């Protein structure tokens, strides 16, 4: 718990320092001030702590060793268990990785924290929930694919790479070249950071609320169908030895 918070915190600190060294030279990028960019990356950290659902790691090794059987033989849904366990872990994690850093930043650099309006707050919560569902479905999909390939962890790295590239966690999407931004705006990863942050920082979103909400729901449905399909195939394929 502590290490994940530190892990992501270090990454954000490094990015903010990179921008600081750029802005120290008196340059400005894409009309952003340094404080606006710092606020953006602070938001990336906080929103990422709420929306990312990286629970596939726990189960991929168990698929490989056959230990996953202990869940499959029980009279409850393994997928539901995995999500509920992750939500409870995330709730515990909230104090360490969200509340405490928020208090520290609030004292040290209050200009980097923004308080959204109640209306925006509702939009943010809506996208945070959808983003978590998308993240959980992707994690479950990776677990399911782990039944077919030996080194499922590579898929986790692929997910991280795609999230880093298309979620806006490394760079605001409006600074991307048009062709790359258009791709990012079609994919589900933008809901991980870019979309909730646009509402949080009250910057003009690239599309209307209803368009983005519709796209997020389409992705939820698509991922759910694919995940369920692979799950059925995975169960048929799975074999384990031992007790």
């Amino acid at each position, binding site marked *: 718990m502590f*290490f*994940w918070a*530190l*892990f992501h915190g*270090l*990454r954000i600190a*490094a*990015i903010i*320092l*990179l921008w600081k*060294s*750029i802005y*120290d*030279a008196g*340059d*400005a*990028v*894409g009309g952003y001030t340094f404080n606006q960019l710092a606020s953006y990356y602070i938001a990336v950290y906080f929103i990422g702590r709420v929306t990312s659902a990286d629970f596939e*790691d*726990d189960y991929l*090794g168990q698929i490989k060793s056959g230990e996953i059987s202990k869940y499959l033989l029980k009279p409850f849904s393994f997928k539901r268990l995995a999500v509920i366990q992750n939500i409870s872990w995330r709730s515990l994690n909230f104090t360490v990785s969200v509340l405490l850093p928020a208090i520290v930043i609030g004292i040290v650099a209050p200009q980097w924290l923004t308080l959204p309006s109640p209306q925006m707050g509702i939009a943010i919560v809506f996208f945070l929930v959808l983003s978590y569902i998308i993240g959980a479905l992707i994690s479950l999909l990776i677990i399911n694919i782990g039944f077919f*390939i*030996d*080194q499922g*962890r*590579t*898929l986790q*790295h*692929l997910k*991280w*790479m*795609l999230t*880093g*590239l298309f979620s806006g966690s*490394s*760079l605001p999407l409006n*600074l*991307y*070249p048009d062709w*790359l931004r258009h791709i990012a705006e079609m994919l589900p990863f933008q809901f991980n950071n870019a979309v909730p942050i646009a509402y949080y920082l009250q910057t003009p979103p690239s599309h209307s609320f209803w368009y983005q909400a519709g796209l997020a729901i389409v992705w939820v449905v698509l991922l759910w169908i694919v995940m369920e399909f692979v799950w059925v195939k995975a169960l048929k394929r799975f074999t384990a030895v031992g007790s």
Partner: protein
Amino acid sequence: MKKHLKLLLTFFRYTIQTSMIYRIDFIVWTLVTVGWFIFTVVFYQLIFGHITGIADWTKGQIFVLQGFYFVTNFLFWGIFYPSLEYLPRKITKGEIDFLLTKPVNTQFLISFNEFSLNSFLDLFLGIGLMWYGFRLDNTAPSLFGIVQSILVMIIIAMFLYAGYFTTVCLSFWADRLENIVYFFPQIREFSKIPQQGYTGAVKWMLTFIIPAALIATTPSQFLFGDYNYQHVAILLIFAIMALKLSNWVFAQSIKKYSSASS
């Protein structure tokens, strides 16, 4: 020494064989590496559309710096990570016994029993970025600079390995620390900026407390003909200290380890 080299060769042959078996993993890792590479190039091309330099480093020099970052990617994901990836899980399950009973240095056996062939791509892409950086600036490194830069990189590899191994050893002391394997590589994020780009206490901390700012800066400077031996001395001291610390921490950790098997 001869025995260790022979073992390394055997493990490397094993890596080649397993890479050929798990082709999908090979393809996915390649995609991951290429994806990060594309992102790095796009990111800095984009930034340099708005600025002229970072801490007086030109666009070409920044690409050389990023090239060294990719070389450290190769060190972590290609050399260190494949062996240490499952160490926390092996400790939990008491599977270290099999390694402790072998007539070879256990730390060596734990650290270098597997490699990742596809991460070699990071090495080539890193060298490619350096070549591109020099091409942008219309310059070329001297042979003397290249040789010294490689030697500096060996010192950095020693420091990174020892630091990584020491942090992963924490999993001997606490249960379910499986994500610890991702923690230490993260310090390299601070090497993406030239050391001169940091100021004040942060600069001091990233040079003298954890020399993360020197990881890519120092070998890059040697390629540019700026031979900063003071930085090399700092890195060498840290590498030796970190190696000694890793030996000591491992010895203490093994004392604490209790097998779960027979």
